[in-house]
């Protein structure tokens, strides 16, 4: 190998090493300090003694609930948008504008979504600060992920399937519903999971739209305020009267959040590969 070639290889390998090293260091640190804290009690109990002891159950519950609500909103809207863009409006100027808007949506800082959510959902639509407003706000943030991955999945469906459907006398909607969407399902699922992974850890969008510092009760309707894991970590590290005392809780919460997103991703990957294998195709 020539010398220059060796230099290139060295630097690319170094870059990889830095990334992987950092990643492993972070994960190692969180796991090492968090694993001692996590217990059934930590998961299932509310905080005690001014949030310096006890568990994180309300925060976990709030995060899961708002993410579920977000999915209910973002998957149909995202999928239908992608279906319109790819199946009905492809090539039209209107679609180009929509696509541009969606791409821009993806690059807006999340705190701006939070402010928008406050202005639009909480105040203008009078949904109040609660689970629903937060779920919708986070949904807007993750919408591009669902739209883009669904559109990719739709594009990957060979046109010959559509032609065969039309030639048999199927209507456009029948072709989409019976041929295109089933074929695109793994891709759609990927988008949904990506949006969960992204949305679950977001704090900025829920800051003004529904999250609470501490609640002695669990939310009982979608308009109630809620506690949230990511926010819980944030206040534990910055707002607690004794940050040192809450350190185990910080580590524990972070580890739980990580496990949650990781395991969701893994489940998603498993479902997807199983569908790819089991599905006829």
């Amino acid at each position, binding site marked *: 190998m020539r010398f220059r070639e060796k230099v290139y290889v060295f630097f690319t390998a170094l870059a990889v090493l830095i990334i992987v090293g950092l990643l492993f260091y972070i994960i190692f640190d969180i796991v090492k300090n968090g694993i001692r804290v996590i217990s059934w009690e930590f998961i299932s109990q509310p905080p005690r003694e001014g949030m310096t002891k006890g568990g994180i159950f309300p925060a976990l519950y709030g995060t899961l609930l708002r993410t579920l609500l977000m999915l209910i909103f973002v998957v149909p809207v995202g999928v239908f948008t992608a279906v319109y863009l790819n199946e009905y409006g492809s090539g039209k100027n209107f679609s180009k504008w929509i696509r541009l808007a969606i791409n821009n949506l993806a690059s807006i800082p999340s705190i701006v979504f939070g402010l928008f959510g406050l202005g639009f959902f909480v105040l203008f639509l009078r949904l109040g600060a609660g689970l629903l407003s937060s779920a919708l706000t986070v949904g807007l943030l993750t919408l591009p992920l669902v739209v883009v991955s669904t559109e990719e999945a739709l594009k990957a469906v060979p046109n010959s399937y559509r032609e065969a459907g*039309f030639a048999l006398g199927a209507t456009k909607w029948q072709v989409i519903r019976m041929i295109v969407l089933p074929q695109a399902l793994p891709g759609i699922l990927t988008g949904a999971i990506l949006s969960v992974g992204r949305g679950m850890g977001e704090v900025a969008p829920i800051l003004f739209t529904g999250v609470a510092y501490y609640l002695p009760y669990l939310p009982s309707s979608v308009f109630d305020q809620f506690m949230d894991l990511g926010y819980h970590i944030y206040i534990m590290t910055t707002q607690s009267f004794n940050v040192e005392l809450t350190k185990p809780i910080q580590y524990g919460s972070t580890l739980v959040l990580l496990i949650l997103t990781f395991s969701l991703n893994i489940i998603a990957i498993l479902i997807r590969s199983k569908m790819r294998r089991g599905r006829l195709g």
Partner: protein
Amino acid sequence: MNNIKISVKNLNIYYGNFLALKDITLDIPEKSITAIIGPSGCGKSTFLRALNRMNELLPNVRTEGKVLLDGQNIYEPNIDLVTLRRKVGMVFQRPNPFPKSIFENVAFGLRIQGIKDKEQIEEIVELSLRRAALWDEVKNKLHKSALELSGGQQQRLCIARVLAVQPEVILMDEPASALDPIATLRIEDLMRELKEEYTIVIVTHNMQQAARVSDFTAFFLTDENRAGMLIEYGNTSEIFTMPRDPRTEGYITGRYG
């Protein structure tokens, strides 16, 4: 000569400003096989896709003239495309079964018509597969993926899928060009059987195939502006033994194409 099933009158097709087919007029007799032959790019496929209005799936295609199916112009504004395409089925160049089971592929045309009766569907699926000479090969794996079949089997499955919706006309766009010689012969045998009941129009650039299976042959060629036009049309035996036009003779004797 049989009754006329499809009558094409002064058909012009444009892709944007480009004239792809120029002034085609020809009559297709029912319950027979009509072959469209000619070199690549002469508008054979475009012509075929004009007969069930599949060209309209592409943007910027404009069609002028008439295509009469049983005397009714299919380009009238009140024509229902769904009904038309059920009457005029199509088999494509590459086998394109859906990524579903063998059974569901054939049942698809019935399901989109809203047929729910399970026994009726099973009956039609079996009948269609039998007619497409595929039943014996697949009867024990109806619920396996259609994509596990060989290319020739897939193409016969696509034919069965078309038969299930009980068409009157079957359009075939080079149905054997992606198949090996043995699978090709099976498709040709099948076509001979099917013409007892259906009107078949086949596009092929395989002249031996046209000579083997078809009753009538239309020879297309492009003019100096690359627009496809009909050079000669008549009984297959006459076209191949005593063509009237020197260009037809040139093509079938392999001088160009």
